[in-house]
């Protein structure tokens, strides 16, 4: 009994760690977004307006979709897959941002709408995917309705802490040490790698979170 409880705690820790990483990645990318857009759209105050709007909007949608997705056969494997997809959708920022921003710059004269379009094109989809992870994590962690608020609270705590660290580490140090593209690729690799590890863990322990799901169903 004692031992199984401890094992479950490790698994929960793993989920919390993953949520922390997703929070870290979101803010790291958001901070770099200002740098990525500056060569084409400048550093006027509306650049940050565009970036923050797009990130908030896509996080909102991500929460919605992630929550919806978690209602149907939630599993650790799917959770890992979301990480891999998030990592992959970040790559166009490295590969296609220049020509994308160039064509938007040519098409839209007003740098307010230009920057809004560009940040939508580059960051909308990866941020939606990253946003989906939070409600999905809650789904995997909650075992009964009584602790759901506490689990959600812990999860917000951990992922927002990740966001805070992602912001400060990127802006204070990472940009001083690395190219922007290097940082984005590293985040992409990190997310994909964690996704793969998650799937391996899920395959190794097929009953890990399933049993809970079944318990939930029996409760309902």
């Amino acid at each position, binding site marked *: 009994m004692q031992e199984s409880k401890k094992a479950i705690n490790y698994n929960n820790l793993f989920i919390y760690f993953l949520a922390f990483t997703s929070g870290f990645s979101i803010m790291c990318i958001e901070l770099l977004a200002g*740098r990525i857009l500056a*060569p084409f759209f*400048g550093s006027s105050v509306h650049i940050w307006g565009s970036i923050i709007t797009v990130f908030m909007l896509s996080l909102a949608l991500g929460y919605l979709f992630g929550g919806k997705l978690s209602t149907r056969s939630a599993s650790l494997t799917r959770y890992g897959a979301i990480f891999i997809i998030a990592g992959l959708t970040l790559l166009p920022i490295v590969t296609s941002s220049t020509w994308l921003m160039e064509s938007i710059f040519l098409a839209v004269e007003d740098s307010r709408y230009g920057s809004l379009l560009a940040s939508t094109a580059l960051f909308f989809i990866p941020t939606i995917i990253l946003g989906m992870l939070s409600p999905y994590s809650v789904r995997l962690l909650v075992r009964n309705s009584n602790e759901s608020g506490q689990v959600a609270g812990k999860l917000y705590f951990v992922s927002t802490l990740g966001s805070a660290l992602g912001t400060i580490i990127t802006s204070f140090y990472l*940009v001083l040490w690395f190219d922007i593209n290097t940082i984005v690729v590293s985040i992409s690799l990190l997310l994909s790698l964690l996704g793969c590890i998650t799937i391996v863990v899920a395959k190794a322990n097929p009953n890990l979170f399933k049993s809970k799901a079944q318990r939930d169903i029996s409760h309902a």
Partner: protein
Amino acid sequence: MLNSAGKLIYGLCFLLGVCIVNNAMAEVIHSERSLYRNILVEDKGDLRCLKFNVKSNKTRQSCLLKSQPQRLVFNYTKQLLTGLLVNPEPKRILIIGLGGGTMSNTLHQLLPDSYIDNVEIDESVIKVARQYFGFLENNQVKTYSQDGRVFVKRALLKKLKYDWIILDAFNGDYIPEHLMTKEYLQETKRLLSPQGILTANTFSSSKLYIYESATYKAVFGDYYQVSNPDNSNRIILARNNGLDENFYKEQAAVEQSESITQLAIKLLAIGVDAKQLYKNIKSTATHQDWPDDSPVLTDQFSPANLLNIDVD
């Protein structure tokens, strides 16, 4: 005893008087919070200064003497005029970073037939320049409220060319990061006419110095540097066509000759000694003061203001 007490009182009164006079001398006549910074206009006797963020001399952006508004106050603005020695008749001038608009006014006065485009990101700075610094605009002198980088990119699309580009965009600390990169300098270079020149106002006492120097060299090849030993500004003067072989001879000739050119007379009228300017010009081909392997700032890597922190 009485005498010394009297002296003491007299001394105290004098000190008090000095304090009062000093306080009366520096007077903030306008302050506002713009989207980008706090803007202060301060009068100190005859001197009026535009400052960003704090009330220290370090953040002075632009100054003028109210009684002689045409005279240049700052050494660096005088040094920027070195551009005229290399390219005496620029027809189209682009100034990025307006400040009080004193540079634009001076150039308009010196070159009444030239066209001057001023670019300034902050609308409030433009208003303050008009209201407190007599910034002059007309058919020849125009102002655009835009980010410098965006203006340059749009100007390239319109196939505009400038004979002289002056980079003087500063925020509270230093030059914004996206206005220091290799890519940005390449864009400004493409905006230059074949004989065009670029001058940039930079600081010489910073960790950033070597990065900036290397970046300019990567884009323009060797260039001229203008600095006075007594101030911390370094003017970068780059030609679109690289160094001018004849300029060195010209420099030597001016130093020896007694005659004064038309340009020198004009410059003297605004408080600038052309001979001194010639003297301070050094080519990086012969006077490179940074290591060859210094890193270049790019759009991918430009932690400019982080590097600048260690300065003082």
